Protein backbone atom coordinates (compact mmCIF):
# COMPACT_ATOMS: atom_id res chain seq x y z
CA UNK A 1 0.00 0.00 0.00
CA UNK A 2 1.39 3.36 -1.04
CA UNK A 3 1.51 5.94 1.72
CA UNK A 4 0.05 9.36 1.05
CA UNK A 5 3.31 10.99 2.09
CA UNK A 6 5.30 9.28 -0.65
CA UNK A 7 2.88 10.59 -3.29
CA UNK A 8 3.01 14.08 -1.82
CA UNK A 9 6.82 14.03 -1.81
CA UNK A 10 7.04 12.89 -5.43
CA UNK A 11 4.57 15.51 -6.59
CA UNK A 12 6.36 18.17 -4.55
CA UNK A 13 9.64 17.25 -6.23
CA UNK A 14 8.08 17.32 -9.70
CA UNK A 15 6.55 20.74 -9.04
CA UNK A 16 9.86 22.11 -7.76
CA UNK A 17 11.74 20.82 -10.82
CA UNK A 18 9.06 22.35 -13.05
CA UNK A 19 9.24 25.75 -11.39
CA UNK A 20 13.05 25.70 -11.48
CA UNK A 21 12.91 24.88 -15.18
CA UNK A 22 10.52 27.76 -15.89
CA UNK A 23 12.87 30.11 -14.07
CA UNK A 24 16.22 29.04 -15.50
CA UNK A 25 15.65 27.98 -19.10
CA UNK A 26 15.76 30.35 -22.08
CA UNK A 27 13.94 28.20 -24.62
CA UNK A 28 10.19 28.90 -24.73
CA UNK A 29 9.42 25.28 -25.70
CA UNK A 30 11.15 23.89 -22.63
CA UNK A 31 9.37 26.43 -20.45
CA UNK A 32 6.06 25.09 -21.82
CA UNK A 33 7.14 21.54 -21.04
CA UNK A 34 7.97 22.56 -17.47
CA UNK A 35 4.48 24.06 -17.09
CA UNK A 36 3.07 20.71 -18.21
CA UNK A 37 5.21 19.00 -15.60
CA UNK A 38 3.76 21.23 -12.88
CA UNK A 39 0.20 20.42 -14.01
CA UNK A 40 1.05 16.73 -13.80
CA UNK A 41 2.34 17.16 -10.27
CA UNK A 42 -1.02 18.70 -9.36
CA UNK A 43 -2.77 15.75 -11.01
CA UNK A 44 -0.76 13.33 -8.91
CA UNK A 45 -1.92 15.15 -5.78
CA UNK A 46 -5.53 15.07 -6.97
CA UNK A 47 -5.41 11.29 -7.40
CA UNK A 48 -3.67 10.70 -4.10
CA UNK A 49 -6.26 12.73 -2.20
CA UNK A 50 -9.10 11.11 -4.13
CA UNK A 51 -7.92 7.73 -2.88
CA UNK A 52 -7.34 9.11 0.59
CA UNK A 53 -10.86 10.48 0.90
CA UNK A 54 -12.63 7.63 -0.89
CA UNK A 55 -14.38 9.72 -3.51
CA UNK A 56 -13.84 9.87 -7.25
CA UNK A 57 -14.09 13.66 -7.49
CA UNK A 58 -10.32 14.00 -7.51
CA UNK A 59 -9.94 11.60 -10.41
CA UNK A 60 -12.68 13.35 -12.38
CA UNK A 61 -10.95 16.68 -11.83
CA UNK A 62 -7.58 15.20 -12.81
CA UNK A 63 -9.17 14.22 -16.12
CA UNK A 64 -10.49 17.77 -16.55
CA UNK A 65 -7.02 19.18 -15.78
CA UNK A 66 -5.60 16.89 -18.45
CA UNK A 67 -8.00 18.37 -20.98
CA UNK A 68 -7.11 21.92 -19.97
CA UNK A 69 -3.41 21.03 -20.30
CA UNK A 70 -4.00 19.78 -23.84
CA UNK A 71 -5.76 23.04 -24.78
CA UNK A 72 -2.98 25.06 -23.19
CA UNK A 73 -0.30 23.18 -25.12
CA UNK A 74 -2.12 23.70 -28.41
CA UNK A 75 -2.38 27.47 -27.90
CA UNK A 76 1.13 27.75 -26.46
CA UNK A 77 2.77 25.93 -29.34
CA UNK A 78 0.81 28.01 -31.85
CA UNK A 79 2.11 31.12 -30.08
CA UNK A 80 5.68 29.81 -30.24
CA UNK A 81 5.36 29.12 -33.96
CA UNK A 82 3.86 32.57 -34.60
CA UNK A 83 6.67 34.15 -32.56
CA UNK A 84 9.26 32.24 -34.54
CA UNK A 85 7.75 33.51 -37.79
CA UNK A 86 7.80 37.11 -36.60
CA UNK A 87 11.05 37.34 -34.63
CA UNK A 88 13.03 34.31 -35.87
CA UNK A 89 13.79 33.14 -32.35
CA UNK A 90 12.29 31.13 -29.51
CA UNK A 91 14.69 32.38 -26.84
CA UNK A 92 12.66 34.32 -24.30
CA UNK A 93 15.54 36.75 -23.68
CA UNK A 94 15.42 37.99 -27.26
CA UNK A 95 11.73 38.82 -27.02
CA UNK A 96 12.00 42.10 -25.12
CA UNK A 97 9.80 44.46 -27.08
CA UNK A 98 7.98 45.60 -23.92
CA UNK A 99 11.20 46.26 -22.02
CA UNK A 100 11.10 50.03 -22.59
Amino acid at each position, binding site marked *: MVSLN*AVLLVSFGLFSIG*IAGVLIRR*NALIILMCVELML*NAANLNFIAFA*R*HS*GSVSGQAFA*LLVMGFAAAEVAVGL*ALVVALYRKRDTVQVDDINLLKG
Partner: protein
Amino acid sequence: MEHLLETIGRNMFAIFGVMALGSAAFMVASRSAVHSVLGFLFAMLCIAGCFLSLEAEFLGMAQILVYAGGIVVLFLFVVMLVEMSKKKEKEVFQAQSRYAVVAVLFGAAAFMGVFRKVIFGTASVEALVLRPELAQGLNVAKQNAQAVSRGLFADYLLPFEILSVILLVALVGAVVLAKTERV
Protein backbone atom coordinates in the same frame (compact mmCIF):
# COMPACT_ATOMS: atom_id res chain seq x y z
CA MET B 1 13.27 -14.57 -7.06
CA GLU B 2 9.63 -14.50 -6.00
CA HIS B 3 10.60 -12.48 -2.98
CA LEU B 4 12.33 -9.95 -5.24
CA LEU B 5 9.29 -9.71 -7.54
CA GLU B 6 7.03 -9.21 -4.56
CA THR B 7 9.23 -6.41 -3.24
CA ILE B 8 9.23 -4.72 -6.66
CA GLY B 9 5.44 -5.03 -6.85
CA ARG B 10 5.03 -3.45 -3.46
CA ASN B 11 7.35 -0.56 -4.24
CA MET B 12 6.09 0.11 -7.75
CA PHE B 13 5.07 3.67 -6.92
CA ALA B 14 8.46 4.54 -5.44
CA ILE B 15 10.27 3.12 -8.50
CA PHE B 16 8.12 5.05 -10.95
CA GLY B 17 8.27 8.20 -8.83
CA VAL B 18 12.06 8.21 -8.64
CA MET B 19 12.32 7.56 -12.39
CA ALA B 20 9.87 10.42 -13.05
CA LEU B 21 11.93 12.79 -10.90
CA GLY B 22 15.14 11.73 -12.64
CA SER B 23 13.80 12.18 -16.14
CA ALA B 24 12.25 15.53 -15.21
CA ALA B 25 15.64 16.70 -13.97
CA PHE B 26 17.20 15.44 -17.22
CA MET B 27 14.56 17.39 -19.14
CA VAL B 28 15.44 20.64 -17.38
CA ALA B 29 19.20 20.15 -17.52
CA SER B 30 19.85 18.81 -21.04
CA ARG B 31 21.28 21.18 -23.63
CA SER B 32 19.53 19.82 -26.71
CA ALA B 33 15.80 20.48 -27.08
CA VAL B 34 15.18 17.03 -28.60
CA HIS B 35 16.76 15.41 -25.55
CA SER B 36 14.50 17.55 -23.39
CA VAL B 37 11.43 16.30 -25.25
CA LEU B 38 12.58 12.71 -24.78
CA GLY B 39 13.05 13.34 -21.07
CA PHE B 40 9.55 14.85 -20.99
CA LEU B 41 8.15 11.74 -22.72
CA PHE B 42 9.83 9.43 -20.21
CA ALA B 43 8.63 11.56 -17.28
CA MET B 44 5.04 11.41 -18.59
CA LEU B 45 5.23 7.62 -18.97
CA CYS B 46 6.58 7.29 -15.42
CA ILE B 47 3.78 9.50 -14.09
CA ALA B 48 1.32 7.25 -15.92
CA GLY B 49 2.95 4.35 -14.09
CA CYS B 50 2.44 6.23 -10.81
CA PHE B 51 -1.25 6.66 -11.68
CA LEU B 52 -1.55 2.94 -12.42
CA SER B 53 0.12 1.98 -9.17
CA LEU B 54 -2.33 4.27 -7.35
CA GLU B 55 -5.14 2.19 -8.93
CA ALA B 56 -6.32 5.02 -11.17
CA GLU B 57 -6.24 2.80 -14.25
CA PHE B 58 -8.39 4.96 -16.48
CA LEU B 59 -6.33 8.06 -15.80
CA GLY B 60 -3.08 6.20 -16.36
CA MET B 61 -4.23 5.08 -19.77
CA ALA B 62 -5.57 8.56 -20.58
CA GLN B 63 -2.19 9.99 -19.54
CA ILE B 64 -0.36 7.68 -21.94
CA LEU B 65 -2.78 8.45 -24.78
CA VAL B 66 -2.93 12.23 -24.29
CA TYR B 67 0.69 12.96 -23.38
CA ALA B 68 2.82 10.25 -24.97
CA GLY B 69 0.49 9.98 -27.94
CA GLY B 70 -0.45 13.58 -28.59
CA ILE B 71 1.40 16.30 -26.75
CA VAL B 72 4.93 14.87 -27.07
CA VAL B 73 4.46 14.42 -30.82
CA LEU B 74 3.25 18.02 -31.06
CA PHE B 75 6.31 19.20 -29.12
CA LEU B 76 8.63 17.17 -31.34
CA PHE B 77 7.09 18.66 -34.47
CA VAL B 78 7.51 22.21 -33.19
CA VAL B 79 11.10 21.51 -32.10
CA MET B 80 11.86 20.24 -35.60
CA LEU B 81 10.16 23.31 -37.07
CA VAL B 82 11.85 25.86 -34.85
CA GLU B 83 15.20 24.53 -33.71
CA MET B 84 16.67 23.95 -37.16
CA SER B 85 17.68 27.57 -37.49
CA LYS B 86 21.13 28.65 -38.62
CA LYS B 87 22.19 30.57 -35.56
CA LYS B 88 22.82 28.30 -32.61
CA GLU B 89 21.86 29.39 -29.15
CA LYS B 90 24.90 30.34 -27.16
CA GLU B 91 23.49 30.11 -23.68
CA VAL B 92 21.04 27.47 -22.49
CA PHE B 93 20.36 28.81 -19.03
CA GLN B 94 19.42 32.28 -17.89
CA ALA B 95 22.16 34.53 -16.56
CA GLN B 96 20.49 34.70 -13.15
CA SER B 97 19.94 30.91 -12.88
CA ARG B 98 21.95 30.69 -9.71
CA TYR B 99 19.59 33.03 -7.84
CA ALA B 100 16.56 31.25 -9.27
CA VAL B 101 17.79 27.85 -8.05
CA VAL B 102 18.56 29.32 -4.63
CA ALA B 103 15.06 30.85 -4.51
CA VAL B 104 13.42 27.53 -5.44
CA LEU B 105 15.45 25.66 -2.85
CA PHE B 106 14.54 28.26 -0.26
CA GLY B 107 10.85 27.91 -1.17
CA ALA B 108 11.10 24.13 -0.96
CA ALA B 109 12.70 24.35 2.47
CA ALA B 110 10.01 26.76 3.66
CA PHE B 111 7.29 24.44 2.33
CA MET B 112 8.89 21.49 4.09
CA GLY B 113 9.06 23.50 7.29
CA VAL B 114 5.39 24.41 7.16
CA PHE B 115 3.99 21.07 6.01
CA ARG B 116 6.52 18.87 7.80
CA LYS B 117 3.88 17.23 9.95
CA VAL B 118 1.59 16.47 7.01
CA ILE B 119 4.27 15.08 4.74
CA PHE B 120 6.13 12.99 7.28
CA GLY B 121 3.03 12.04 9.25
CA THR B 122 1.50 8.58 9.38
CA ALA B 123 -1.51 8.92 7.05
CA SER B 124 -1.73 6.23 4.37
CA VAL B 125 -3.78 5.89 1.23
CA GLU B 126 -6.57 3.37 1.11
CA ALA B 127 -8.00 1.77 -1.98
CA LEU B 128 -10.64 3.75 -3.85
CA VAL B 129 -14.02 2.78 -2.46
CA LEU B 130 -17.04 4.88 -3.26
CA ARG B 131 -18.98 6.14 -0.33
CA PRO B 132 -22.45 4.54 -0.24
CA GLU B 133 -24.31 7.79 -0.87
CA LEU B 134 -22.24 8.31 -4.01
CA ALA B 135 -22.71 4.80 -5.29
CA GLN B 136 -26.51 4.98 -4.88
CA GLY B 137 -27.32 1.35 -5.37
CA LEU B 138 -25.24 1.07 -8.52
CA ASN B 139 -22.28 -1.24 -8.18
CA VAL B 140 -19.97 1.33 -9.73
CA ALA B 141 -16.77 1.06 -7.73
CA LYS B 142 -15.86 -2.34 -9.20
CA GLN B 143 -14.34 -0.66 -12.23
CA ASN B 144 -12.27 2.49 -12.07
CA ALA B 145 -13.60 3.79 -15.40
CA GLN B 146 -17.18 3.36 -14.19
CA ALA B 147 -16.42 5.24 -11.00
CA VAL B 148 -14.70 8.09 -12.86
CA SER B 149 -17.53 8.37 -15.36
CA ARG B 150 -19.99 8.52 -12.49
CA GLY B 151 -18.06 11.47 -11.07
CA LEU B 152 -17.64 13.11 -14.45
CA PHE B 153 -21.14 12.80 -15.85
CA ALA B 154 -23.21 13.01 -12.68
CA ASP B 155 -21.44 15.30 -10.23
CA TYR B 156 -19.27 17.42 -12.52
CA LEU B 157 -21.24 17.60 -15.73
CA LEU B 158 -21.03 21.40 -16.01
CA PRO B 159 -17.20 21.63 -15.79
CA PHE B 160 -17.02 18.82 -18.33
CA GLU B 161 -19.21 20.71 -20.81
CA ILE B 162 -17.26 23.93 -20.19
CA LEU B 163 -14.08 21.98 -20.93
CA SER B 164 -15.47 20.97 -24.30
CA VAL B 165 -16.17 24.63 -25.16
CA ILE B 166 -12.65 25.60 -24.02
CA LEU B 167 -11.15 22.89 -26.22
CA LEU B 168 -13.09 24.24 -29.18
CA VAL B 169 -11.90 27.79 -28.48
CA ALA B 170 -8.30 26.56 -28.13
CA LEU B 171 -8.61 24.69 -31.43
CA VAL B 172 -9.82 27.77 -33.31
CA GLY B 173 -7.30 30.00 -31.53
CA ALA B 174 -4.39 27.71 -32.38
CA VAL B 175 -5.39 27.64 -36.05
CA VAL B 176 -5.73 31.44 -36.18
CA LEU B 177 -2.40 32.00 -34.40
CA ALA B 178 -0.38 29.57 -36.46
CA LYS B 179 -1.72 30.27 -39.94
CA THR B 180 0.35 32.29 -42.38
CA GLU B 181 -0.59 35.83 -43.30
CA ARG B 182 -1.26 35.44 -47.00
CA VAL B 183 -3.96 32.69 -46.70
